[in-house]
């Protein structure tokens, strides 16, 4: 765990409860990510996914514990970690170019304006928005806005991308195209990606690992699904892979039943589960883990 590129070490987040006292959203959460890994997090609404992402981004602080990235504890936001916000977070008074250039100029503060613009235009072209540079966000469709958010994140050439349900507001067609683009871009640039999603198929198509979170309060990382699909997969035939449906069924089964009853599951005799290293499972593959650590 200590050797991971990103290491979440025993973090907790508590909020003041309305009736006094504290609500524990999660506590003693452990999890590691390797460099270049694409990790998706799945869990029901309100379990604390955004809270974890905000802590990784440095926008929020854990009540306990720490997050270590590349050997250093996170102290606030950093240009090394780009965030793609759930609500795209574009500045509405700036044009597409203005929004991306703002990020570029923030990263390279001594660059002349022309160089900043050129770099921003390149990022905009990468997400297929060339020609829309001078439009204001209000003139764009939801998918285009999301693309600008992606272009802005990519433009600063971050080491880590943090995405909070980046495609949830999009129609299926746009979503598919953007998934392809993001996957391609992240693979070519070697990004480490932490992405929240509610979409099981999306997670299977994009992720190397899928983190399953139980319902809150006191949410846990129940297990981590290691995606058995090959690294160069295409969206048209992922579902033809023999492991696709086992993985999909495993995740859906988790979301439908096990995410609620995980505490009861832990209480079953013989169940082995360790907060510090949630079990890695690979549904549909020859079973490397002892059966008792796996889903029942």
């Amino acid at each position, binding site marked *: 765990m200590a050797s991971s590129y990103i290491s979440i070490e025993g973090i907790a987040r508590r909020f003041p409860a309305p009736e006094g006292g504290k609500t524990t959203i999660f506590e003693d959460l452990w999890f590691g990510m390797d460099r270049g890994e694409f990790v998706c997090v799945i869990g029901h609404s309100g379990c604390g996914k955004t809270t974890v992402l905000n802590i990784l981004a440095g926008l929020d602080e854990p009540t306990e514990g720490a997050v270590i990235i590349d050997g250093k504890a996170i102290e606030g936001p950093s240009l090394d970690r780009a965030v793609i916000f759930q609500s795209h977070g574009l500045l509405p*008074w700036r044009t597409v170019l203005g929004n991306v250039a703002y990020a570029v100029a923030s990263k390279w503060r001594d660059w002349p304006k022309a160089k900043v613009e050129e770099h921003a235009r390149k990022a905009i072209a990468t997400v297929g928005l060339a020609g829309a540079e001078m439009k204001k966000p*209000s003139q764009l469709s939801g998918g285009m806005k999301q693309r600008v958010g992606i272009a802005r994140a990519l433009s600063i050439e971050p080491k880590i991308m943090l995405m909070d349900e980046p495609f949830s507001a999009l129609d299926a067609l746009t979503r598919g195209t953007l998934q392809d683009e993001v996957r391609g871009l992240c693979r070519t640039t070697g990004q480490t990606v932490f992405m929240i999603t509610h979409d099981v198929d999306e997670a299977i198509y994009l992720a190397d690992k899928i983190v399953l979170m139980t319902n809150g309060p006191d949410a846990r990382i129940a297990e981590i699904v290691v995606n058995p699909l090959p690294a160069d997969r295409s969206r048209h035939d992922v579902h033809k892979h023999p492991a696709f449906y086992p993985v999909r069924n495993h995740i859906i089964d988790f979301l439908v039943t096990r995410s609620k009853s995980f505490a009861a599951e832990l209480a079953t005799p013989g169940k082995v589960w360790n907060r510090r290293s949630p079990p890695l499972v690979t549904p549909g593959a020859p079973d490397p883990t002892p059966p008792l650590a796996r889903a029942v």
Partner: protein
Amino acid sequence: MTRSIGLRALVLSLVILTIFLAAWHVAVSGGGGGGQTVDPEYAKLVGAAAATGGQTPMPGPIDVGRTIWKHLSDPFYVRGTNDMGIGIQLAYSLARVLLGFGIAVAVAVPLGFLIGMSPLVYRALDPFIQVMKPISPLAWMPLALYTIKDSSLSSIFVIFICSLWPMLINTAFGVASVRKDWLNVARTLEVGPVRKAFTVILPAAAPTILTGMRISVGIAWLVIVAAEMLVGGTGIGYFVWNQWNNLSLTDIITAILLIGLVGMVLDQILARLTRLVTYQE
């Protein structure tokens, strides 16, 4: 369609104006000597004045038109402290409003920023603002005259005070309600506090701030007339009061019209500026 509606509205406006002027003309020239249609209290005053001066009771639109023409053809003459062109008087008032308003902007915007950024300062200053806001700005006049000892500066101070609150409140509100998302964008980009203030908070709050300015300038223009009536000397308010003492109603009506026009122009300028900084989400 929109053009034809604009045109029709213009025609209708002109019709209304014509009917109004005609009715005014008839009411003033008919009415059996003009005495009966007039307020008795006013008649008393006119009676008193008639003994010394002999004024016409109520001028008609043609008299007023003639006076307006007289003023507009020579707005900037100076024939003594009590006899200056209406343009000069308006300029005095405008200068006071702009000065008082300008100082208020210089104070309210930075202070509002501070209040809006800090919930602590917001809470600490809120009771003061709540008490100060409903005070009629003219109530400050005696205190201002006593401390400043200059009538012109005192009216500028009164303008300052009355312009301050709407801008302060709007700026604080605008700054406090900047979307968290936008602030987070700046944070993830490691934007420093000064750059953040100018590139995120100011543009985000600008429409609210400018709305505050528009309210302020409107109030300031209302208050300056009253303030100048009170302290005298120069300005359009003083002009109105002076003409009341002369019982020259045509001059008063002319001044009223011009006050309205200038107020409208001030309001329109700020409306334009507001539109310039308004963004669509």
